[in-house]
């Protein structure tokens, strides 16, 4: 039908007009102010006929109708449309456009033109990424996306950061955003080298994320990796970074003299323990990428190597990563096949964070080595190191680091196959199949001479080796069909519908074995058959786990309609099922709708490019962290000594067959405004997390003695404002200066709390167990630090005198009364910041460019645990060092939690400063080169006396005396506790080199 029409038109035209509507070839060059633009897209408007410019910015496009219009576009530039009008050569200069209204943005299951997006979406591309040593992709974004909070407290290179989008999105589910890499759900960010990333798009609100249903509650991070371009010659890019890192802020301690003056026990030496366990760390990163492409196929292959040292001695990792992306077109360009694969090998030296903790509290007069002890000390038993035996929770930190090993190897493989078939101009079908396989082994070895976990103090049973293996597979298959049609000048419609299947398998085991021959210098973790534990009952610890059927299945549909090129409507619906719920509660329905309008099209304000108002509502869900919570399980009770056979008994948790989806309902209102030099986006949102999954106290008598159960136990409301502003202060051919500010604030309130009012976040041993410092109460804000207030006065015992807050004449400050009606407890601070700021500055002049980035969080407080435990001058514990901040008082001699240990931790930080220079070498074989210097965490303005004023967004509880911290269940309702196990912060300087061959 269409062809016939075209043909008749053609014939008609031929008759009427000699210069006629002939198809022809058009070629030319696309460039920007500084020269040719490779990889720019050239498209015949209204068709799929298009190409990309080659390395020199040249393009050739066949089959262009004479009256056609060509659309020239490039990410970050204003799109231009030029009518062909018989020209066979069209050269175009695109101008940079900070607003990039026509930029194509990746959204869930497809792309959208930026101005048509009606939801809260932020897209950040290569040129806007953070500079310096970037160990993890999210570091590229820190401070760049309003509402996205990325915190790696202390900055341990082996720790993944905590990522929170718009605060707490879920209580019992996974609070980390869903990561989608090149269209494949649920992949690991650790498997993408930051240098391979082209763009990261963050779907912030419910209406944007609803297409991802259950896993979209915490937001979605869409990562697009770099790819080769069509018709590009072979090209190599090298990027190298060399950096040095050293400890930044540290909490004030006593030195030898101060410690002795305070009554400390003199062990005869003078040791700076923190100096002993930290170092100036050196890191190097090398990335090499090769790209190229022909008409039908293109490729990009990259190799990345990073050798990262932590400032803690013997900590860091080496990572090797290879990534391949191949795209080819067959069947008359109707079928596009993309193959993506990545292989990552990471060898980690986790080191022991405990060494940092014990370096803070270890006696500064204690010697490192036993030979220097002031009394007879059996050094060989402890590997030559000194140990203060007989003191709880005290280990020589140097011995911990030097004698023990804590290493791990993880191999991750991703592959994705993506088929996109163009059925007609309006209809395409896409099938994506992908798998991520991660396998690893972690090992710890504590030799027979290690007091820390190696049991060197035991006369016989010494030494220990731990092995942990894990294998996690994540398979997905998604199919969707896209229909797009411009029905009339005024109406365009896009419809997407599809199916998604995802399955997670995991299994692993743990083994702990010990009792190795003492006095033998050998790594027995390589020869555990020597272990005497094999000969004695009950010594070996072993366990295994396996989950094979953890599945999420979904059907989804979405419609995007555009009216009059100015009014936009997006709606989506997802029906999703998860195997983690009870049989009757597996399926949930997650709708969204959003509308937006470019008001400027009607108002036609001067100098205004865009004035868009949009409003969206979306429902997303969250699954519980663990599988099987709905099912009844039984434990196995073996008879003592293997006699009496075995019986099944009560399981380890109370099942809840009625457990259902946690739902997040979010309303978002946004305004986008753009002028030539300025752009602004404002988002207001209101989100309700209903039926959130949480561990609720239950009546033990009626529930088999179980005192808690996972239930849909409450409702959480968060209201927030996000603002981002961008201004081109200077913009001319010689010089530019762009300044951007993001601001975000939110308030989370516990609207309903089935679990009842309670306090959580126990400070821990020594001496402060049953001391919960965070209040969880219906109707109140999340993250209130709760405790008695210190009057400033101290009694004769050295106990701080607390304030009779309610003035009833009775001082009720015991922890057991924390919630009593007459308790003298109050809110001592907020764990979550009032607001956060990010301030970006980009200067460019000639070949020079400078980036300066400031970041801050304001209004939050932290419980300074180091102070709470070790600042009081406790006589009977005088072998711990004393913390000695500006707030320390010599007259406080007992440790009892109060407002005194809660500090305001607002900060403003020069997070990143980088200076770059583009070299003009004039060499044939080097097409471009750039050299840069960057500094990270350079200067922090804060009154907080601990190491890092960064807000603590979640809590893992206390750990003591060499036990291993359990990080499997973060408590998101307990922000605000600065624990004793946090890594030390560091300052980094980086030299970067980038060469294009």
């Amino acid at each position: 039908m269409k062809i016939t029409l075209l043909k008749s038109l053609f014939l008609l035209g031929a008759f009427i007009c000699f210069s006629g509507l002939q198809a022809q070839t058009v070629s030319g060059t696309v460039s920007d102010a500084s020269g040719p633009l490779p990889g720019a897209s050239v498209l015949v408007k209204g068709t799929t006929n298009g190409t990309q410019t080659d390395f020199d910015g040249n393009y050739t496009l066949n089959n262009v109708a004479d009256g056609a219009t060509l659309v020239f576009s490039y990410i970050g530039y204003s799109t231009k449309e030029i009518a062909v009008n018989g020209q066979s050569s069209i050269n175009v200069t695109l101008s940079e456009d900070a607003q990039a209204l026509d930029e194509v943005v990746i959204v869930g299951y497809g792309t959208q033109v930026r101005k048509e997006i009606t939801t809260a979406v932020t897209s950040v591309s290569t040129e806007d990424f953070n500079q310096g040593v970037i160990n993890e992709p999210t570091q590229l974004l820190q401070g760049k996306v309003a509402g996205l909070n990325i915190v790696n407290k202390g900055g341990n290179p082996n720790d993944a950061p905590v990522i929170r989008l718009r605060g707490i999105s879920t209580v019992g589910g996974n609070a980390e955003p869903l990561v989608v890499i090149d269209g494949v759900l649920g992949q690991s960010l650790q498997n993408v080298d930051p240098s391979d990333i082209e763009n990261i798009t963050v779907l912030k609100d419910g209406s944007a994320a609803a297409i991802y249903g259950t896993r979209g509650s915490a937001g979605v991070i869409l990562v697009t990796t770099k790819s080769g371009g069509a018709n590009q010659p072979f090209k190599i890019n090298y990027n190298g970074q060399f950096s040095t890192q050293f400890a930044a802020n540290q909490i004030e301690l006593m030195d030898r003299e101060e410690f002795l003056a305070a009554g400390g026990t003199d062990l005869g030496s003078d040791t700076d323990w923190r100096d002993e366990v930290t170092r100036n760390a050196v890191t190097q990163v090398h990335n090499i990428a090769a790209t190229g492409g022909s008409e039908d196929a293109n490729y990009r292959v990259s190799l990345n190597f990073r050798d990262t040292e932590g400032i803690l001695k013997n900590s860091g990792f080496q990572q090797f990563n290879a990534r391949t992306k191949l795209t080819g077109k067959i069947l008359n360009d109707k079928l596009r096949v993309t193959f993506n694969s990545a292989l990552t090998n990471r060898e980690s030296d986790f080191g022991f964070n405990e060494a940092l903790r014990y370096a803070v509290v270890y006696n500064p007069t204690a010697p490192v080595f036993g030979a220097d002890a002031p009394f007879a000390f059996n050094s060989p038993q402890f590997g030559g190191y000194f140990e203060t035996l007989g003191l709880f929770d005290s280990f020589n930190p140097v011995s911990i680091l030097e004698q023990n090993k804590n290493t791990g190897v993880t191999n991750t493989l991703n592959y994705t196959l993506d088929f996109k078939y163009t059925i007609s101009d309006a209809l395409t079908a896409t099938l994506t199949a992908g798998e991520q396989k991660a396998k690893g082994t972690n090992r710890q070895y504590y030799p027979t001479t290690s007091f820390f976990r190696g049991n060197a103090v035991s006369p016989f049973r010494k030494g220990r080796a731990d092995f942990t293996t894990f294998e996690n597979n994540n398979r997905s298959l998604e199919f969707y069909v896209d229909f797009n049609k411009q029905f009339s000048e005024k109406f365009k419609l896009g419809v997407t519908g599809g199916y998604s299947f995802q399955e997670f398998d995991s299994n692993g085991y743990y083994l702990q074995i010990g009792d190795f021959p003492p006095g033998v210098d050998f790594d027995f973790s390589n020869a555990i058959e020597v272990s005497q534990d094999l000969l004695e009952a009950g010594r070996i610890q072993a366990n295994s786990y396996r989950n094979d059927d953890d599945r999420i299945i979904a059907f989804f549909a979405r419609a995007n309609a555009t009216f009059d090129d100015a009014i936009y409507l997006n709606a989506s619906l997802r029906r999703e099922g998860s195997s983690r719920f009870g049989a009757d509660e597996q399926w949930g329905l997650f709708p969204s709708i959003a509308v937006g309008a470019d008001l400027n099209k009607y108002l036609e304000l001067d100098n205004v490019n865009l004035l868009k108002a949009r409003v969206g509502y979306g429902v997303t869900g969250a699954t519980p962290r663990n599988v099987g919570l709905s099912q009844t399980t039984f434990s196995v009770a073996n008879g003592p000594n293997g006699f009496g056979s075995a019986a099944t008994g009560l399981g380890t948790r109370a099942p809840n067959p009625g457990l259902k989806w946690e739902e997040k309902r979010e309303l978002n209102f946004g305004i986008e405004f753009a002028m030539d030099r300025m752009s602004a986006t404002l988002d207001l949102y209101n989100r309700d997390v209903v039926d959130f999954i949480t561990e609720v106290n239950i009546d033990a008598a009626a529930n088999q003695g179980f005192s808690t159960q996972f239930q849909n136990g409450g409702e959480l409301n968060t209201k927030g404002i996000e603002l981002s502003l961008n201004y081109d202060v200077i913009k001319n051919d010689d010089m530019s200066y762009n300044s951007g500010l993001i601001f975000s604030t939110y308030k989370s309130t516990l609207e309903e709390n089935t679990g009842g009012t309670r306090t959580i976040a126990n400070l821990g041993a020594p001496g402060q167990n049953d001391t919960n410092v965070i209040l969880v109460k219906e109707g109140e804000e999340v993250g209130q630090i709760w405790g008695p207030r210190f009057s400033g006065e101290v009694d004769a015992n050295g106990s701080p005198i607390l304030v009779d807050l309610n003035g009833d004449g009775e001082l009720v400050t015991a922890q057991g009364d924390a919630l009593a009606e007459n308790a003298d407890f109050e809110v001592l601070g907020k764990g979550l910041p009032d607001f956060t700021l990010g301030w970006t500055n980009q200067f460019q002049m000639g070949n020079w460019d400078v980036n300066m980035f400031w970041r801050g969080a304001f209004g939050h407080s932290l419980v300074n645990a180091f102070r709470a435990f070790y600042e009081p001058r406790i006589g009977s514990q005088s072998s711990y060092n004393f913390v000695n901040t500006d707030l320390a008082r010599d007259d406080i001699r007992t440790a009892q939690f109060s407002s005194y240990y809660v500090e305001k931790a607002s900060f403003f930080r020069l997070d990143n400063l980088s200076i770059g220079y583009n070299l003009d070498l004039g060499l044939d074989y080097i097409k471009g080169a750039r050299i840069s210097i960057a500094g990270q965490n350079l200067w922090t303005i804060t009154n907080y006396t601990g190491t890092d004023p960064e807000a603590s967004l979640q809590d893992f509880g206390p750990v003591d005396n060499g036990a291993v911290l359990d990080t499997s269940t973060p408590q998101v309702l307990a922000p605000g506790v600065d624990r004793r196990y946090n890594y030390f912060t560091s300052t980094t300087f980086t030299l970067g080199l980038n060469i294009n061959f």
Partner: protein
Amino acid sequence: MKRIIRSTYIVGALLLGVSCTDLDETLEDEFTTEFSDNGVQVIEGATEGGGQVPAALQAAYGRLRGGSANHGGYYSVQTVSSDEMAIGQKGGDWFDGGIWLRMHRHTYGSANGPLNNMWTETYAGISEANLALEGSLTAAEEAQARTIRALFYWRLLDTFGRVKIITSSTGDAPQATRQEVYDFVESELLDVLGITAVTASMDLSGSALGTDADPYVINQYAALGLLAKLYLNAEVYTGTAMYNEADWAASYIIDNGPYQICGEGCTVTNLAKRPAVDSDPENLEGYSAVFAPNNQYNPELIWAIFYDETSATGMNFSQMNFHYSTQLTYALDQQPWNGYQVLEEFYNSYDDADARKQASFLAGAQTDFDGAALLDYASDDPTLVVEYTPEISELEPNSPRQSGVRAAKFSLQLFGRQEMNNDYPLFRLGQVYLIRGEARARAAGDWSLALPDVNITRERAGLPAATTMDADTFLEERGHEMFQESARRTDLIRFGKYGEAWWEKGASDASKTIFPIPQDQINASNGTLTQNPGY
């Protein structure tokens, strides 16, 4: 179009080998069905203790271990609330929000964590027994399971008073009065004994319980022991005295049971003897043998909780009680926590000649594995020697690290693990004599009637026979015999002494003799639980 979508679904599902909407999940690493009833085999002939427990009751018996001899539950509450022991705040250590100070001073409230632990662990035991009772059991097994459950309900009766009587593994019940809980425990025990009342001439031939002397399997004497204890305290629980019944139940055990007082010649090897220390005895004899790490099948044990360092864990006295450095005396696996301290007055009330004083405490200057002085390098005292002093200068805030002698009746063994091997008596013959003596004295209002029974325990302790007796001396005698066996709080209440002031504890109200229902439980109960008076 539709056909394409459909066929793709099918292809996709085939690729993955599952139906495209299948969300059934098999928990590969959990048991999701019971296997208890599937013909499990009992291996006969166990000799190390705990061996004759029927397979179907392993889980229920196992629940007895929870809280009975570790930190934070039943044992801790019974002990720290009495005048036996306290956990002093040692500077920055052991303050723990003041919960243990308040436990000792009887200023506990409904938010006290250990009380909640005690509540939940007891109900977990009850549910385990209920679950077992819902399976197919022999009559003897059923009687044992009901006795276990009755023991847990006796603990609830004694501590919280008004609780829910739950008799199925699912389901709820209203909060009963203390009288109702008492009646339930009594009727359950009478029922398993096959009688309707305890009398001087009762016939237990109708009981499903056996009479074999296996302290790890409940027999008639174990159930009678519990009944005797219930009757001894009946006046406290219900206001109605049942001293004759207590006497008859105790007498039946003494007269018919196969038990003996472990006295002279009743010895076990001393597993704590250090090779280089000559003063450490080779053997433990008499009283100390009853509680030793190798006390399995001690002839005095009627009903004991079987503990084992590997297969029946849950006894942690070696961690709870001792100074960190005591690890080096016995070469213990783990560093102790330096918590529980024995009150000076309690320790000093023993006669120096009392064998139980030697057997029950670690006191004085300590030595290490080789017999040399045990040093505490972190000590303030320049001599550095660890010495457990009877004197405790203060309860808080700076109770000295080495002050207070330490409870060591459940004695240590060299190279001991965090988990101990000593079996924990719930009922033993020495205790039964004291129940009988007290019951006879109270029934007649004449304490001299207790003398014959009391002198049996005194004799074993190497003490001369007492010739006079009153309530106070009887309580003191009972305290020495039953130290560290979770009896003291109940005894103090029965003798009207619980509310008296001692050391750093002030006088406390009578309402404190019953603990508050844990607030967490009340909050979670939708109004089905109400608080006890006085809280």
